[in-house]
């Protein structure tokens, strides 16, 4: 199966050692190299719920997008009855891809090889020369596009889990739904996304999620240039050291609640709809601590809210970003803009324009993150790196704040590496349990 030099018992030892070290605040660089890769494939990306897209990308029956988990291609369709299906993009006859585009609208997918044709639910509805070729011996029910059984939506987001025995999506999200609603469930009209913008970066997929789990420390240096010139507005209110943002941990989610997340810059109607969409406990939480920013859903999806400047003024935005591993040191980064469906079209446009300026491939913040993630990754792939340990020492036990009626844990201090350690704890647990 693989030319891997390590075997499972070694993995067990590496996990145990890493977990012990993690609790003392150091992380062996080895978990970012190729020893973990095979196990990350089978135990994380083939067994966890993976974000594929958003319902608003396929609004009409027949609409589809093609998305990928690891290196496997899936067609995400909306069937005539409005149900969403996630289908393996592999002809049941002899394996050709039945869809070779990124997006479109169609009543069927026809294989270019022998012409087997499937409808948007994956049912085989056409076989050329069926009677001459097969007589009565071909049962179409036995030859359909394989469907991912565990595909589901939450707040309009489409997720799939390739493990037939997976727990339901909502159980997986657990306490994190309370926080996720503040980002993607914050409008009675629903959210809509545009994108994705895609690029391939030489980095290990974990650096993005770790950074976005709650590294408030790096802004001081990594984003200093962008902050100094004011890409998010007046630099005097943007020192980079956000003492007042609070980290939280909830189920598979790690992030921050941020008072300056710019959610009050949306039009009045949009803000009004937010009050109707969220619960009293949720509204109280954002009143006290703000909305989530830079928040990661394990394993590889990040949500962020913020604002950017333009000639037209400051505009707020929300994005969803995934880091899809192509190998231990190669990752496709995709980013979608998200906004309330009932926001005015001109506002949506300006919000997207503000976002690309700060985040994404040309983003004045993201450029520096990408440079750093690829540099760290390069350091982790060398013959020397197995003996090296990284420091995740900062404030190991931040003070929890007790907030009534709010699931998960919220902490008092902004500057801590506890959230990064939490991401890694979950990572190690998942690798271990995935082998059970």
């Amino acid at each position, binding site marked *: 199966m693989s030319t891997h030099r390590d075997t499972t018992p070694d993995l067990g030892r590496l996990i145990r050692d890493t977990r012990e070290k993690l609790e003392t605040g150091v992380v062996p660089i080895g978990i970012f190299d190729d020893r973990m890769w095979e196990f990350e494939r089978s135990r994380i990306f083939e067994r966890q719920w993976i974000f594929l897209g958003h319902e608003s990308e396929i609004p009409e029956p027949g609409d589809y997008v093609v998305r990928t988990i690891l290196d496997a291609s899936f067609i995400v369709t909306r069937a005539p009855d409005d149900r969403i299906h996630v289908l393996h993009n592999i002809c049941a006859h002899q394996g050709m891809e039945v869809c*070779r585009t990124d997006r479109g609208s169609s009543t069927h997918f026809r294989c270019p090889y022998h012409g087997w044709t499937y409808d948007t639910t994956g049912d085989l509805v056409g076989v050329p020369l069926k009677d001459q070729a097969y007589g009565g011996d071909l049962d179409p029910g036995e030859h359909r596009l394989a469907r991912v059984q565990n595909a589901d939506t939450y707040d309009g987001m489409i997720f799939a889990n390739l493990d037939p025995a997976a727990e339901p999506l909502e159980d997986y999200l657990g306490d994190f739904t309370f926080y996720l609603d503040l980002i993607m469930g914050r409008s009675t009209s629903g959210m809509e996304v545009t994108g994705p913008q895609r*690029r391939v970066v030489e980095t290990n997929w974990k650096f993005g999620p770790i950074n976005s789990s709650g590294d408030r420390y790096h802004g001081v240096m990594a984003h*200093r240039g962008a902050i100094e010139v004011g890409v998010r507005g007046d630099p005097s209110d943007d020192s980079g050291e956000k003492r007042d943002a609070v980290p939280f941990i909830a189920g598979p989610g790690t992030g921050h609640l941020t008072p300056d997340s710019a959610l009050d810059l949306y039009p009045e109607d949009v803000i009004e709809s937010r009050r109707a969409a969220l619960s009293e406990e949720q509204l109280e939480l954002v009143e006290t601590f703000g909305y989530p920013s830079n928040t990661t859903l394990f394993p590889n999806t990040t949500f962020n809210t913020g604002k950017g400047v333009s000639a037209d003024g400051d505009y707020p935005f929300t994005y969803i970003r995934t880091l899809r591993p192509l190998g231990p040191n190669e990752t496709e980064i995709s980013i979608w803009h998200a906004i309330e469906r009932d926001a005015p079209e001109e506002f949506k446009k300006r919000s997207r*324009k503000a976002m690309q300026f700060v985040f994404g491939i040309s983003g*004045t913040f993201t450029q520096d993150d990408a440079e750093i993630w690829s540099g760290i990754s390069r350091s982790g792939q060398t013959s020397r790196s197995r003996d090296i340990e990284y420091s995740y020492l900062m404030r190991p036990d931040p003070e929890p704040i007790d907030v009534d009626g709010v699931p998960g844990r919220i902490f008092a201090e902004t500057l801590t590496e506890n959230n990064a350690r939490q991401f890694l704890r979950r990572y190690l647990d998942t690798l271990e349990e995935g082998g059970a």
Partner: protein
Amino acid sequence: MAVPDRPLDLEESAEVRRFYRLETRLLDSHRYEEWLDLLTDQVTYRIPVRETREEPDKELQGRFYHVDDDRFQLQLRVDRLQTEFAWAEDPPTRTRHLLYPTRALELEDGRVQTLTNLLLVVTRRNESSSILSGEREDVLRAVDGEWKLDHRIVRLDQAVLPVRSLSFFI
């Protein structure tokens, strides 16, 4: 009565060619402050995201951009590069813009529209080079007797970009 678009005369052609020679030289030698002088105050600079579609004319209609900048944003990008903390361009990425003109027309309003095939070789530090290819559609406007860039759309061929950042200008 509208004047139809027309080919450039010899003198205009020479001026437009001079514009691109200068612009290319400034971009590839990171002289961005001088490059900003070649843009009008109303400039729009866009690189739309491409998706592979059955219908080629829909591939760039996703309403989403890799870059969607106005003059103010372009100025801030250049300002950021002048700080000591623009890590993605420290040290600077080496770029080589190779252009091949495919159309130049004078529009009814006196501005000039050009189409240019573009091959951009990007080299970061000692890494392997990456190639971006595509078409630029520009509109140039004469301001005080000088041609300036009024609009640019860069239609890249790649749907998934092979570079970690667009930290340079195309």
